């Protein structure tokens, strides 16, 4: 939970290097958060308590979801059969309130972002669930901890195509849910292309800090699932396993940075197709393991 904002720092640095700039320090996201927490706040006259609930519920849902996530050799705080459903629905809860907070401002910009957010997430959800179902089928378990813990090199030898397809599908979900290129552009917020950034336009001070931190946690959360599949080595040494998982996360951050530097954002209509493609990918993964 402490390392989460660092991932964003790594992504930004990678993008800067790719663009030939020096870029901001790796710890800049932390400085931003500290600065925001110390600031005052401005609220819109139109808004109600729903607007103020948005960031709070968003962050709380992410913290709860983190409690269900295993990392490296460390199991989740409270693993149970079906916790993957809970994680997905906690993300949905956070989104529900972020969207309502955006609508509460009465601004067309923010409502537009909100509308796109619900559209893309509704399509990303089946891809996520089918991907997880493919994983559940291969490992024969229903909890994230045992599921991600039992992905091994032996399983890769046996079912590499299915695992590869699952990673690809989850990768698309990751990009869409975290508002990265090619789905959304996290660097601007006043173009009509924006989704996540435009929804939080009216938040300021500590509220905005909560939103930024929740976004970092969400990235960590979905990233950790992908890394747990992609880095299947278990040495038995918790420190070594934790270290390889963290290295994997930074590797993922670099990959995202490279994707963001080398691609343009897709047209909104194409995003829908991308997400449906992700559903198809996880469907294929399932077909492979279901034989």
């Amino acid at each position, binding site marked *: 939970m402490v390392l989460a904002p660092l991932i964003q720092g790594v992504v930004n640095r990678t993008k800067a290097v790719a663009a030939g700039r020096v870029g901001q320090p790796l710890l800049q996201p932390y400085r931003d958060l500290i600065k925001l927490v110390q600031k005052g706040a401005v609220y819109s006259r139109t808004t109600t308590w729903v607007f103020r609930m948005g960031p*709070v519920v968003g962050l709380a849902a992410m913290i709860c979801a983190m409690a269900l996530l295993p990392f490296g050799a460390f199991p989740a705080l409270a693993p149970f059969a079906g916790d993957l459903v809970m994680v997905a629905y906690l993300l949905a809860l956070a989104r529900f309130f972020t969207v309502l907070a955006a609508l509460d401002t009465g601004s067309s910009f923010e409502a537009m972002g909100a509308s796109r957010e*619900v559209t893309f997430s509704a399509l990303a959800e089946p891809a996520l669930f*089918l991907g997880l179902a493919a994983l559940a089928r291969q490992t024969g378990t229903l909890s994230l901890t045992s599921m991600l813990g039992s992905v091994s090199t032996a399983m890769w030898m046996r079912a590499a195509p299915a695992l590869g397809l699952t990673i690809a599908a989850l990768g698309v979900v990751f990009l869409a849910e975290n508002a990265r290129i090619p789905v959304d552009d996290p660097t601007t917020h006043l173009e009509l292309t924006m989704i996540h950034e435009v929804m939080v336009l009216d938040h300021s001070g500590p509220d905005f800090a909560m939103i930024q931190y929740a976004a970092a946690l969400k990235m960590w959360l979905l990233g950790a699932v992908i890394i747990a599949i992609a880095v299947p080595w278990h040495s038995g040494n918790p420190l070594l396993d934790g270290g390889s998982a963290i290295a994997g996360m930074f590797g993922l951050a670099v990959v995202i940075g490279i994707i963001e530097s080398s691609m343009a954002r897709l047209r909104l209509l194409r995003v829908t197709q991308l997400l449906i493609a992700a559903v198809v990918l996880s469907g294929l993964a399932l077909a492979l393991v279901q034989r």
Partner: protein
Amino acid sequence: MSALLIALLSFGAGAMGALVFANRGRGATICGAGGVLIGCVCGIIPVLRVALGEPSQSIRMAWDVPYGSLFLELDPLSGFFLIPVFVLCALAAIYGADYLEAYRGRKTLAAPWFFFNLLVASMVVVILARNGVLFLMAWEVMALSSFFLVTFEDEKESTRQAGWVYLVASHIGTAFLLVLFILLGRASGSLDFDRFSASSGAGLLFVLALVGFGTKAAFIPLHVWLPEAHPAAPSHVSAVMSAVMIKTGIYGLIRVMMLLGAPQAWWGWVLCVIGLSSGVIGVLLALAQHDLKRLLAYHSVENIGIIALGLGVGTLGLYAGLPAVAAMGFAGALLHVLNHALFKGLLFLAAGNVVHSAHTREIDHLGGLLRRMPRTGAIFLIGAAAISGLPPLNGFISEFLIYLASFKGAVTLEGANSVPMLATIAGLALIGGLAAACFTKAFGIVFLGEPRTEHAEQAHEVGLAMVLPGAVLAGACILIGLLGASVVSSMPPLISEVTGLSATIVRASLSTAAHSIALVSIIGGALAGIVTLLAIGRAIALSNRSVSTNVTWDCGYAKPSRRMQYTASSFAQPLTDTFDLLLQTRRHVIAPQGFFPKEASLATETPDPCQEYIYRPLFGAIGRDLLLLRPLQQGQVQLYILYIAVTLLLLLLWQLA
């Protein structure tokens, strides 16, 4: 059992009292609402006890109707379905007493209260009846009394049309049930349910039950009456119809499936397909609606779809000999019946408050109501989060059970039967995402932002009697969310009755689910705790800093106007466009023309595709063909007597030959 008979008497007395005191001020209201209230309070205690596992009670009296007998039984399944009936009807009666006051002087209130009591009584009898004749009679009374309630505002053309569609649909459904019971009774020679035995043609009987009960439950494509009837009815009636009356269809289907014995695999497949199509198409049509109550009506179709998915998964589990899948599937479906009753009742009552106060159901004409109606807004928000299946509320618990059952099935089942499980997982995920989209739209556009019209501007909070029932339901939604594990742990007697599995096996199967749900609730509680801590933390942090209010950031634009706000249609447009193949939304566009355009407009409407492409052509063709029979219809009594005489003569000749 005697308490239930007293409850029925109380409904009868309420109905009669409403007629007798029709012209005495509030007399009809007091008798009508009082009859329902007393009856529901009397009935709820025995019902709860039997649903929780006390022995079943029954009563059987002779009845001189051919093949009929007054055979009533209260078993766990009936008890479980009666809980929401009594809770919802009592709350709706309190609400209706205030809601109908607005019509006093213009309309007689005796009729709605008479039919409301009749509706409640008939639903109770439908669920208790164990004889085919008694069941069908109660079923018919239920259809007719709700028809008269739907057509309460019969001065409106649209209401009469809605009532007509409802009446026709109900009777087509009943026709299938009639055949079903005749076939069931023919094998055993009696129409008492306990004499029925699994006969050879179980498949045909299943299909008949599916169509007959599916019409009442509003499975797609049999749902067309629902989005017409629910918005037309007074709000407390919509709440009762949507929350509990359509569930009698689910009840009937489960009851008949129990009578038919061991299920076949294709039943599960059919239920899953129906569930998926009802769920996805229902929520998509809801998304495309502009009318708040119509939107809620389509969500009933969606939730019936979720229930059917649970039943399908459970049936497949039963077929494949996987007790865990069967128990969790049926438990999820049944719990969703209860949960949907709670949050849909709540949402219809809250929508009723909006209509009552803002005098419009048009979502795009509302806005900013949370400031004007804070209590209604708060309970609507809880209902919206619950129906979207968000933790820690009750909707999540039942959907979680269905997810768990289908994940379990997908992991353990081999071969083709795992396909419906996977489809259920993907379908539930899509439905969940779309429902969240739909309810952020409904709540966000109606209650948040600035009022879009005068109507919304002048809205005001309604009286306590119209807020309290919703608040009770909201409390129940939260309670089931936080006590889900104990609810699931109390379900084994019910599930064991429905699935025919032994109570020990069911208990063992549900205990893992109960363990998971206990953790879900703990995390839900933790979530509430963290939310409070963060909010307090923010309040402390902001206490000595500058906190100011200003206009919403509008990119430096100088004159923001409330008309510039996003509308519900634009909010839903990316999704409705993506699924246009299913929705066929029509657009009426007047594009701006010339250098100085004077007018421009855009209107969209999404008529029900089943109505447009199946029923309208079908009934049109039937109507045209029936014109051929018109010459027989001359309006002369002598001619009709001639017809009768000729028919009799022909029958006699046929008998002789």
